[in-house]
């Protein structure tokens, strides 16, 4: 099977507008990323109802089963006949009602997920929601989308983050309240950002234990997003509630980190603290990690961090031997780092190209991966099990990453076991 090595693209020769040709896709068994089921489960007291054909349902139901939340997810199975007989809308409404009527305890909210076929056939989901709202006035309903085919306009991932906050209604604004939105990972409560934001005024859906807690986010004055996939969620929520939104993207560039904090301080009208000690701490952490890791080749993947090229550049500048990056496309936010990185000898690999099925055979005995996809493709047990930056932020993210790299280098993990868990940080019934 391992017939030939997949061909990488040298970063110096890469076309940043299109790193790789599209084609058939392979799926690597690195399962740490979140899907729309995981994200929806962040809404307390809510029930997810999926209306889809069997093939689409299977993955979502078993996601819930593995995370132990099967009692919060139900489904309406769409048959082949229903795709053609004009009953799609009726079945969403009646199927959802059938489920709700059979529940002993009604949920506070319903996330109603429809699929590609509904969008493609012009399903009037607003009409369906109106009927359900009328029939169940004590339940809040919102529309969610499992529509991977329809991803060219807006990805299901981004849309999910928008809809997750769509049930928040405007409450009297509390000027002190700042809410982080759109992150799957819990917020980094040890980040130095809390030298600026008062902890007691900080909110996040991860801290919401009840639906009332969630609704209380409506008093937020400032919404913050830190990841590209969350940006639209913050913008739309702030606009709908008439509040402010700041996009302060998680970064591995010192200047960008400082720029984020300057922006936040300016908005809040406070003096920017001196973050030099944090920066020095981060530099020392990398220095210590480098002493341990030495010139061991490193691979960085895009599941671990939203800006793999920016991280690769930082690591190269600190003396690490980054040899590979796994990314299907360039995040436009890191174009500058991408250009700067061209002076290094780095190979870029795609994550889904069919030839990646052969995995990557190298001349090295030991490779350190930052991310699960790198661990799988480079077949290394020495990896940082990080997904979406693990929610880390600022200089603290850098310090933590340096520690995790050192630990990963010294302590191999059971790769096959670690990579099988879906939804990093979610509970799992797998053993």
């Amino acid at each position, binding site marked *: 099977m391992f017939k030939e090595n997949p061909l990488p693209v040298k970063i110096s020769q890469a076309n940043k507008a299109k790193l790789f040709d599209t084609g058939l896709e392979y799926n690597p068994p690195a399962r740490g990323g979140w899907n729309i089921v995981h994200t929806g489960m962040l809404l307390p007291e809510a029930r997810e109802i999926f209306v889809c054909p069997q093939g689409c349902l299977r993955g979502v139901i078993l996601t819930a089963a593995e995370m132990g939340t099967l009692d919060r997810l139900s489904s309406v199975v769409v048959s082949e006949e229903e795709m053609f007989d004009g009953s799609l809308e009726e079945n969403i409404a009646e199927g959802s009602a059938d489920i709700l009527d059979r529940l002993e305890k009604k949920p506070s909210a319903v996330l109603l997920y429809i699929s590609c076929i509904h969008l493609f056939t012009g399903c009037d989901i607003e009409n369906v929601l109106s009927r359900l709202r009328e029939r169940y006035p004590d339940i809040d309903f919102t529309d969610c989308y499992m529509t991977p085919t329809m991803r060219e306009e807006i990805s299901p991932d981004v849309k999910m983050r928008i809809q997750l906050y769509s049930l928040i209604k405007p409450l009297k604004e509390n000027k002190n309240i700042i809410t982080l939105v759109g992150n799957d990972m819990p917020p980094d409560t040890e980040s130095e950002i809390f030298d600026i934001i008062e902890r007691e005024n900080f909110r996040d859906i991860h801290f919401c234990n009840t639906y009332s807690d969630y609704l209380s986010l409506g008093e937020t004055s400032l919404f913050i997003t830190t990841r590209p996939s969350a940006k639209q969620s913050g913008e739309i929520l702030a606009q709908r509630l008439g509040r402010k939104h700041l996009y302060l993207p998680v970064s591995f560039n010192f200047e960008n980190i400082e720029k984020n904090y300057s922006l936040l301080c300016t908005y809040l009208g406070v003096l920017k603290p001196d973050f030099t000690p944090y920066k020095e701490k981060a530099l020392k952490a990398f220095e210590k990690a480098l002493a341990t890791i030495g010139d061991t080749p490193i691979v960085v993947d895009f599941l671990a961090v939203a800006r793999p090229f920016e991280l690769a550049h930082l690591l190269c500048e600190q003396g690490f031997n980054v040899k590979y990056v796994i990314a299907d496309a360039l995040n436009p936010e890191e174009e500058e780092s991408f250009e700067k990185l061209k002076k290094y000898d780095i190979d870029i690999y795609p994550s889904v190209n069919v030839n990646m099925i052969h995995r990557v055979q190298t001349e090295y005995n030991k490779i350190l991966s930052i991310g699960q996809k790198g661990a799988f493709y480079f077949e290394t047990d020495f990896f940082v099990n990080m997904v979406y930056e693990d929610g880390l932020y600022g200089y603290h993210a850098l310090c933590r990453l340096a520690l995790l790299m050192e630990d990963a280098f010294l302590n191999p993990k059971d790769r*096959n076991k670690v990579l099988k868990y879906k939804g990093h940080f979610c509970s799992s019934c797998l053993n």
Partner: protein
Amino acid sequence: MKNTLKIISCYSADTAGVCSILYEMGGMVVVHDASGCNSTYSTHDEPRWSKYPSNIFISALTERDAIMGRDETLTDNTVKAAKELEPRFICLCGSPMPALIGTDFYALASEIEKKTSIPTFSVATTGTYSYIQGAGLALKEFIIKTSVYKKREENTVNILGYTPLDLYINGQKERIVKLFEDKGIKVNFSSEYSENILNASHNLVVSQSGMEAAKYMWENYDIPYMCALPIGEKLSKFVLDIPNIKEPVFLERNTAKTSFYILGESLFSQSLAKALSLEEGIDAGVVYTLEKEDRAVAPCDYTTSTEEDTENFLKEKAENIIADPIYKHISPVNAKFMSLPHFAFSGRCFEHNIPNLMCDDHALKEVIK
């Protein structure tokens, strides 16, 4: 009654069945569906995915391709990948969106075959049926496309319908092989590529997924088949009689009334019911939640179509239930529930608790303990 699932799982879909039954045959399967949709199969339907890779890919269908009818994206990408990977055969199968827009897979397969000179066939899956249907059609099409009848090989048995969805990768396949080989009977596992499948003297159908192929070979090549799994010692002996059968054989079960029910893959459940009768004197019925062969149904058996229907039947009739643990959610609390995980239903959740019942009385006793 709406087909709604308040709390239980759904079975693997037809596309997963295609991929699963062809997994070890050295071909390339292309599922025409959106990017990322292969994650469901590779995560929840395929325990071999991390252990040994197979050329199972997704076409990464987009709305633009669907709206513009750009089938050439699929054919071009498939041809390109086939030239790099050189598979023994290519199989195309569909999903809900191609079903909606009426993609002509038969024509696309023909075009790809012309361009690659690799045997290519299609299976008209829609993502709306169970894995049984997908696997069954795929196996039949595979045989039609790739097998050639040369000469009858006596005392040779094809094992039809094996996939880990029903017979998990915990030694079940190996026990079946050993059962026959110990008696000097040659075995062709249909899960492995073989051009000689039509030469075998007999077919053993080990899941409903093998039924289409068995019927095809009986009707066209006079190969008789037996539908049974060697669960327990006595049923194993019965199965070993296969070289002597001259026409299709189904397990006979005549139980008219019982409160002991089994839920699971139909042929597996029928075999388990028969084994319980032979080994333990238990008269068990089967609740069919998947496709079944009518000729093997006992009077006490029941066919269900929805979760609510299943729940009501169990509440009314069942005092002893053997089923996947997820079915416990809809089983009466006062019934004795005996857990028998089914990978096609609960996926990875209980995979390490799936017993190997093949040719083993002790494992059978453990299930009903």
